């Protein structure tokens, strides 16, 4: 379980990105952080793998305060997916996928076996695509490689920052379906940042709506659809909150 307890983040210069955020994500469940740009959703995500440090409050994973863990170790046990995949352009798809196993010092044979598994898992053909460079792949393929890279060392937690934000609607739909399939099979604890309401409601078990650095609404997709809250309704109609 990931738990955020009264977490605040103030950037140098005084901008308060988060104030008093508390969240809990149960093992094997997916939390979506929904909001407009600047609401603090990406900040929240990056606090969990300590790409930034909280100014106040406590974050724990499986009951252990992440402050007490080595950040490098912590990150190698958390999958990380970003918008447009963020693949290393000088590495082939396969080398990208094997990044974390390489950092962990796996043998080439073990890495190679794992690569094949992962390509199959994310629905990519290993023989034709493994040795391609990112600029020789489509946007959807790149995103799948990015996901495979995040899952490479089988981390219990995966963080995803607008993973499908830059894709066309058809590809996005396909990948979302694929996500639901993987989620059911892998049972990872996931945090998904998105500004797309439909995506949040479709993929997550819990959706937290962030406004100006605090949690304005939280609930299950079903619960949120049923609510009378004007804020949620504004989001659902696709307008600005």
């Amino acid at each position, binding site marked *: 379980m990931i738990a955020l307890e009264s977490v605040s983040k103030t950037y140098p210069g005084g901008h308060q990105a988060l104030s008093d955020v508390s969240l809990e994500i149960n093992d094997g469940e997916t939390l979506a952080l929904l909001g407009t740009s600047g609401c603090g959703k990406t900040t929240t995500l990056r606090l969990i793998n300590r790409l930034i440090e909280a100014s106040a409050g406590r974050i724990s994973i499986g009951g252990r305060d992440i402050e007490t863990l080595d950040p490098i170790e912590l*990150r190698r046990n958390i999958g990380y997916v970003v918008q447009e995949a*963020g693949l290393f352009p000088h590495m082939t798809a396969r080398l990208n996928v094997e990044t974390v196993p390489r950092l962990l010092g796996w043998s080439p044979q073990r890495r190679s076996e794992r690569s094949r598994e992962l390509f199959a898992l994310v629905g990519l053909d290993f023989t034709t695509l493994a040795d391609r460079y990112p600029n020789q792949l489509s946007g959807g393929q790149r995103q799948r490689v990015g996901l495979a890279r995040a899952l490479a060392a089988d981390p219990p937690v995966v*963080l995803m920052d607008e993973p499908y934000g830059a894709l066309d609607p058809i590809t996005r739909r396909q990948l979302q379906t694929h996500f639901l399939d993987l989620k059911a099979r892998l049972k990872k604890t996931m945090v998904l940042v998105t500004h797309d309401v439909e995506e949040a409601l479709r993929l997550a078990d819990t959706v937290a709506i962030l406004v100006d650095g605090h949690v304005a609404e939280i609930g299950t997709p079903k619960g949120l659809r049923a609510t009378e809250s004007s804020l949620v309704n504004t989001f659902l109609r696709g307008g600005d909150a």
Partner: protein
Amino acid sequence: MSCRLTRVARATAIAVYLLVTSDGAAGQTTKIAVGAKPFTESAVLAEVMAQTIEAYTDIVVERRLNLAGTHVCLAALRGGEIDLYAEYTGTGLRDILGDKSERISPGLAFATVAKEFARRFDLEWLAPFGFDNTYVLLMRPQHAAELAVTKVSDLSEHPLRFGVSHEFLSRPDGLPGLRKVYTFQESHTVGMAHDLAYQGLVEGSIDVTDGYSTDAKILRYGLATLADDRHFFPPYEAAPLARRDLAERVPEAYEALRLLAGRIDAAAMRDMNFQVEQKRRAPAAVAADFLGSLGIVADRKVHSERETGVFRLLYQRRWKTLDLASRHLMLAGGAVLAACLIGIPLGIAVSRRPALAKIVLGFASVLQTIPSIALLAFMLPLFGIGVAPALVALFLYGLLPIMRNTVTGLHSIEDRLLDVGRGLGMTDSQILQQVELPLAAPVLMAGVRTATVITVGTATLAAFIGAGGLGDPIVTGLATTDYALVLCGALPAAALAIALDWILGQVERWVTPSGLRE
């Protein structure tokens, strides 16, 4: 007690003598080095001195001709890189000692420099060669004969058109001072370029110009020189200027040099300059002929006549060129290598701190704007002459492109990729090695390529401070107006730069990650 001290002193003296005379790889043979400034007369005099020493001793004489100028020669002499060169008393008096006194006799000038150089620099002026290369007024011979003018004071009788060099027009020891001592009827006075003044005089558009008394052009145009009968012009007697230890270290060389005292008059010097500049003969050959005519050196062919065909000369010099090119490569390569070893880590370090990057790159840019020859000159007091100062100066030139491209290459990487690297659990050094350096490599390599081309070009100037390389024939050729020789340095240097640029272009392609190629 005093006995023991004497013994210690004697032992020390012997040890020092052995150290000084043994000179590493050369073993038993004593070596001395003769220097020269980059103009014909200085090179000819250096050859005259070198060949005289070689004729009377077994000493190996190294020629380090074409040192950039008075101050480079002086620095080299004081630093022990050369043992002697030909200097002029007037230059010593004015340019080095800063003496401004007017109407000083040749004897007094020599006595002054001899005394002051011994006291201040521990250097010795040997007896002058016998000519005074000072300013001289020149006329067409028929014109001078018509007016019965033989000396400067005769000019007061006639209204004449003066056309003199700009320098002569304004220097206190030029026309302004001359007017105080002599009376002229200047119907018309203009400043003009030296070569044009000769031309104008010959063609009759001016009547009087100034020159140097041993200038080959006096002979070439057959001009009349007017005697300075009131001794206005400062004396510029040429003499060997040597380290004071020369007489003790290599007494036989010192003795040999005494044979030259008073043996070269202005006409002989003018003729030797003429042979080199107009007849296109090598300074060594001209010096050998002259020494033969004096009976100092038995007539022996030192060098054949000068080759004027560029391609023939290039072919003749092919092994020499190869030798110079490898030295050139060593200089440029060493400098670029050092610039990489310092510039890349420094670039990486400052790229993390934008404010610092600005300061460091700004400083490197300032270094880059210093003219090459000036930068080389700045190195002299610190590193003497030869390879060391050249390497340091070339290194400083290579530093900016390498450092700037390292910073630019690193800054051009998308932040998102660095963020992903960190998010996946890479340490800072893993991000540098696995993400930043591979992605910055093409830009970084382009910087190395620029630095290499700049350095190969600038290294030709290193010849001015005695570092050798392909600049040697360029500088020698320029000094002795031998353009075929200039091209023997310039063409291989250009070819070297183009070849290296091409090779590094291939390296640049090779280090460009496949995923970044179009």
